[in-house]
Structure formats: structure tokens, C-alpha cells
């Protein structure tokens, strides 16, 4: 035995045997890899490796638990920490980081970076990886469920004659056939519904001129959209190309999975404070992802139009016709566009610019 081991530092503590709540005064010493607990009629030898050791913190008491149910406790945390250090008890890097402002601030900075990177790359990547493992039949089931809940509510039976419907389908199929190999591979189905854009009390329940894609490949086009684009089948091909882009890239499913991922992350961070606060990043994140998806879908529309020998700038016609239908007040309100953080689509002006730029290239 060396001199240092012969005289290890001692600490006064309370010992509890796990059966009685009575505290008994003991002295603690670390000798080699054993904690010695000595007191009146007590002489315990606990291997350090089998102890549940307390972590250092500025506040709070220190309790170490043995596997036999016994415990030693010190109310003077500083004295315990000094003794533990003098006895050569190490502590983990995590405990050191927790007790140091500089590393805590580094952790804050890393959290910010991680949140930004996770949002930009991590969540979309994880969503794609999850979807790769998810069979397409799940998409179709979800799509059917959504469509079932819209039918009879927002979507009424189409009044466009079947010949015209078939003509649109054929034109779109021909356009797809001219694209690069691989582009037209995704399964899809064009379906037509009426959703008259009535003014007044019923306005909220009607879609008006619209087209959207559901998970599983169903593309819904409203009669009103066909009417709006009367005589401009080239623009209609662009609109369908945009929706087909959503289908091709499984955007609907990706939004669902990404929402679940962000929701999980934020509820770990803030969930026990307020579920509403925890949901806010999900909502904002969804809107931003949705805008990214719209841009991707616009790119697919551009690719389809090009393959069909059309100029992407024909799409400006869509936005002009939509704008013409909008009440005059709408233009003034666009200038006051606080809603951008919540909007699911990029601003019209930005999208028009995208199509024009594509045409110029």
C-alpha cells in the first residue's frame, strides 16, 4: 500500500439500509475500487462499479445507491464533490459539459445548426428513406380515404361530358409519352369533379378552378379549371404536369411523414410545456416544405411542357386568368402579405417569374 492509499479522504454521510427509514451516521472512504462505509455496527464494502453514483450539480443533495438496496446520502453537496474528486472518482464528459456555461452555449449553437440542417436536409432525407420502405398501396389507401371524404362535400359529380374528359386524358398521356425515359413511369389517374365557386355562405365549401394530387396518384381536376382554361389546352397540360410532379415525387406522403418527424422532435423539446407551442414549428415547417414541393412540381411542369414542344411561359396565362377572377380588393391585400410564412404555395409573382425564366433559357 502506498501512503496515499493508506490515508484516503473520509466523508461524513447518512446511511440507509433500504428497510428502515432511520438514518445512521457513517464515514465514507474510497479504497481502491471499493467504497467503505463504516459506522456504529456498520462495515460495508461496496464495489464502486456496482454503485449508482450521483452526478455533480450545483444544487441538490447527493445519494449513492448500492445494488443491495442500501444508500448513502450527503446533504452537503459541495463537501461530497470535494471528497469524490479527492478520492479519484471521475465524472463523464456530459456532466462536465452540463456544469460549464461555455459548453452549454456551444450546445445551444449546435442545436440551432442541427435544427436548421435537420430541417433542410435531415427531415426530407428521413422522409424519403421511410417512404422507400412503405409500399405504394399505403399511398393509394390514404388517397382513397381522402377522396372519399371530399366526395359529396367539396367535390360533386362532374358535368363535363365524357368525350371531353377522355380528350384531356389522351392529350396528357401523349404529352407524358414524349418526356424523357423514367419521367412518365408513375401510376396516376385523372378524375374530374364539379366544385362550383358560389359566392356567399357556401363559398368556403367550394374549390373553384383547381387541380390537386392525392397520395397514390389520383389527380383531381375541377370542371371550373377546365372552363377557366378553355381554349388553352397547352396551359392545361402544364397544370397537369405540375400535379403529376406531386404524384411522381410522392409529395403528399412526404408531407405526412415530415410532419410526423418534426412533430416528434418538437414534442421532445417542448411537448410538456404546451402542445400548441410544440405544434407551431410543424405548421411553419409544413408550409415551407409545401412551398419547396410546389417549386419542384413547377419544374416538372416545365419539363413536360418542354418535352411537348411548348414554352413554359404559357403558364403565365393561368395566373393571369386566375387573377382576373379575383375580387379587386385581393390585389391590394397581396401587398400586405403577412401570410407568407403560412402560405402553402409560393407567391404567384415568383411562380410566374420561374416559368418565364425557364422559357428564356
Amino acid at each position, binding site marked *: 500500500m502506498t501512503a496515499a492509499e493508506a490515508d484516503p479522504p473520509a466523508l461524513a454521510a447518512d446511511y440507509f439500509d433500504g*428497510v428502515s*427509514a432511520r438514518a445512521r451516521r457513517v464515514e465514507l472512504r474510497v479504497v481502491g475500487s471499493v467504497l467503505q462505509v463504516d459506522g456504529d455496527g456498520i462495515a460495508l464494502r461496496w464495489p464502486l462499479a456496482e454503485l449508482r453514483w450521483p452526478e455533480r450539480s450545483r444544487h441538490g443533495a447527493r*445519494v449513492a445507491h448500492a445494488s443491495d438496496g442500501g444508500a448513502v446520502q450527503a446533504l452537503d453537496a459541495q463537501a461530497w464533490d470535494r471528497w469524490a474528486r479527492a478520492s479519484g472518482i471521475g465524472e463523464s464528459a456530459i456532466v462536465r459539459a452540463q456544469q460549464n456555461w461555455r459548453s452549454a452555449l456551444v450546445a*445551444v449553437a449546435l442545436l440551432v445548426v*442541427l435544427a436548421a440542417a435537420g430541417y433542410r436536409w435531415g427531415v426530407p432525407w428521413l422522409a424519403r428513406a421511410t417512404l422507400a420502405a412503405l409500399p405504394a398501396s*399505403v399511398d393509394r389507401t390514404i388517397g382513397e380515404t381522402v377522396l372519399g371524404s371530399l366526395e359529396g362535400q367539396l367535390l360533386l359529380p362532374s358535368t363535363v361530358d365524357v368525350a371531353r374528359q377522355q380528350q384531356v386524358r389522351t392529350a396528357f398521356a401523349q404529352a407524358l409519352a414524349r418526356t424523357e425515359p423514367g419521367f412518365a413511369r408513375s401510376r396516376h389517374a385523372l378524375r374530374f369533379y364539379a366544385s362550383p365557386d358560389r359566392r356567399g355562405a357556401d363559398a368556403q365549401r367550394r374549390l373553384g378552378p383547381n387541380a390537386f394530387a392525392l397520395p397514390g396518384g389520383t389527380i383531381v381536376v375541377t370542371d371550373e379549371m377546365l372552363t377557366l382554361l378553355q381554349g388553352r389546352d397547352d396551359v392545361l397540360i402544364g397544370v397537369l404536369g405540375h400535379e403529376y410532379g406531386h404524384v411522381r415525387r410522392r409529395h403528399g406522403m412526404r408531407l405526412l411523414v415530415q410532419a410526423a418527424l418534426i412533430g416528434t422532435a418538437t414534442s421532445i423539446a417542448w411537448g410538456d*410545456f404546451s402542445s400548441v407551442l410544440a405544434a407551431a414549428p410543424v405548421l411553419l415547417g409544413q408550409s415551407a416544405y409545401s412551398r419547396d414541393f410546389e417549386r419542384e412540381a413547377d419544374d416538372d411542369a416545365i419539363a413536360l411542357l418542354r418535352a411537348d414542344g411548348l414554352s413554359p411561359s404559357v403558364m403565365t396565362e393561368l395566373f393571369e386568368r386566375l387573377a382576373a377572377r379575383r*375580387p379587386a380588393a*385581393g390585389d391590394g391585400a397581396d401587398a400586405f402579405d403577412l401570410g407568407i410564412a403560412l402560405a402553402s404555395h409560393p407567391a404567384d409573382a415568383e411562380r410566374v417569374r420561374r416559368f418565364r425564366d425557364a422559357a428564356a433559357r
Partner: protein
Amino acid sequence: MDDTIPMPLEPRAPAPTPVSRPFDAAEPMHHTLPIEFSGSGSEYFRIWVVNLLLTLVTLGLYYPWAKVRRLRYFYGNTTVGGHPLDFHGDPKRMLRGFLLVGAMVLLYSVAGKVSPLAGLIAFVIVAAIWPALLRASLQFRLANTSWRGLRFRFCGDLPGAYRAMLPLFIPGAISLLGVLVEQGAPRLGGGVASLAGLVALALFPLFFWMLKKYQHDHYALGQLQTELRTGPGPFYLLALKTAGVAIAAALLVGAVAAVVGGLGAMALVFGGAGGRASPAAIVAMVLLFLMVYAAVILVVYPYLSARLQNLVWGRTRSRLVQFDSTLGFWPLLRLTLKNWLLVLLTLGLYLPFARVATARLRLEAISVQMLLSPDELVSTLRERADDASGDAAGDLFGFDIGL
């Protein structure tokens, strides 16, 4: 919207004897055990941020370690009669439970999206095992909490858990019936659904009482076991009062909001050419809604939780131990307002400070009196409840011991 109570821990513990009278007193001695909380917001902030980072970097796998650290910090800083509580949960075990329950929740949420029927089946399954999970969660938490070397116990049995949850199953069964009826007669189905809603509303205070009774009747330490000595009456009274506070708050804030921004919003919505609402009007409406919502959360929640804590802990007692709680509505309201404001302003970074402050206010409002010296407490059997999946379930479904 559970608030930040990490865990108004189970202080059904007696403790040392700061205020004890001489041993020769004829009547039984009262030992008053004050509850003190010594946690610090800035210290917990560092613990929180380091562990949150580790949790996110490991895609959530570190979560049980972070949770154990949080509980040990809060428990270790809670002294009952001068002795700290401690938490013993084993993170590795908790990770298994966490993964198991996580997979279950994932299946549950996917089922609801795939089809209503699959969602319904998943709902029935979760409802059927929920009471067992609640019991497992309480057993795990208490068995892994100690004070003065003694482990707490939760001695509620499994049938008791199902009985306690019974009022919850009645509206559930009615709405299930409604879904089935709706297949045949949609109009009738809607009627059954609203009946289920009414029944649920009427039964909720009863359910809450039964749940609290099941919990507070079965907390034990050594030879002590608590009881909740009250009927459902005070719970109904509290529900009525809370409804009154909610209406008053909504009216007050609604009036203020209308004056401040509501008129402008109305003008934008109805003043335009009668068609679609402009983005500005939508934003104004959203803000209006958020203000009313905030009023409900910020006023009603502190009211309800303060009164509930006082009601439940004030009536928790047994022959040898008695609790009391004197948590004021105003202090909790002030603290809640401050916490929300600062959490919002700091984009969530204030959260650890909020948790510590709330824990201090809530815990220090509780006091314990014992008719025997804490030294006389003896644990007869060493019980271990290691079903950590219950603990994870408690986390994910949002029930915790506290209140």
C-alpha cells in the same frame, strides 16, 4: 397542454422530524415535514440543452438518459423534511419500453390515416390496454422513487385500473355504436355521436375523480398508504367553477380583442368585394383566435390546476399521514403568464427556467404531516416493478403522476 410540471413528485413520504414535540407527550406527535425545492433555472438550462442536443443527435435514442437526468435533478432538489427524493430508473430498460411504445404509437397514427376502420381498431386496442399502461406507469415511477432509502410503492391492482377508467369507456362505446349506426343511417349516427359527446362531458368530472382516487388511494411508503378522502361532488363543483372562469376570460379577452384588432379584421373580411378573404384578414382572424385561445390557456389552466392540486392533495390522507396544498391561483397565473411570455420571446430557450419555477411554486405549496416519526418507517417487502414500457406510455400519452 400539460403544463411544465415535470413531476410534482409523490411526496407521500414522511420525513425526519424538524418539528416534533417531546417524546413523552400524551397525544400522538405531529411531525410536520416541509417540502423545499432547491433547483436552479440556470443550472437546469445547461442540463436541458446538453441533453436535448444529445437526444436529437442520436435521433431520440438518448431520450431515456435525458429523462432520467431530468428526474434525478428535480427529485434530488426536492427535500421532504430535509431529505431528498431520488429517482432510480434504469435508462437502458426505459429505452426498451420507449421503443416498444413508440412503435405502438406509430402504428396507431398510421392506422388512422390508412383507413377509418383500421384507425377504429387501433383505437379500441389502445383503449383496451390503456388502464394497464397507466398502472404500469405508476408502478414504475413509484418503485423507482426513494426517500430516506425506502422505495415508494403503487399498490393499485389491475381490475381497479379498469374500474377507474370505466366512465371513459361509456362515451367511447356510444360513439363506437354511432360509427356503426352511421354506416346504415347517417342522420341517426350523427345524433348518437352528439349523445356520446354530452355523456362524455357529464361524466368527465366523475372520471377524473375515479382516476385520482385510484392513484391517491394506492401510494405507499413503508407502512403508510394514502387515501383520497372525497367524493365526486367537489370535482363537479370545480368543473362548474372552471367553466365560469373560462367563459369570463373568453368574454373579457374577446371584448378587448374586438376593440384592438377585431373591427379591422371584420372590415377586411366583409368589406372586400364579398368574395375570398384577403391574406391580411385571415392573419387578423388567426391572431384573434389565438388571443382567445391564449386567454383560455393562460387563465383557465392555472385556475384549474391550482384548484385541482389543492383539492386532490388537500384530501389525501390516512390515519398516519396527511397532506395539504395551498397553491394560490394568482401566483400560478402570474408565473404562467411570465413563463409563456419568456418562452415565446426566447423561442423556447426559457423553457427550463419555466419548468424549475413552476416546480418550485407547486411543490412548496404542499406540506406533509405525520403521526409517527419518519424514523419508524419500515419497508416490509422489497418490491420491484420494472415494466418500463408503462413509463414510456405515460410519457407519450401525456399522463404523469403529478396532478
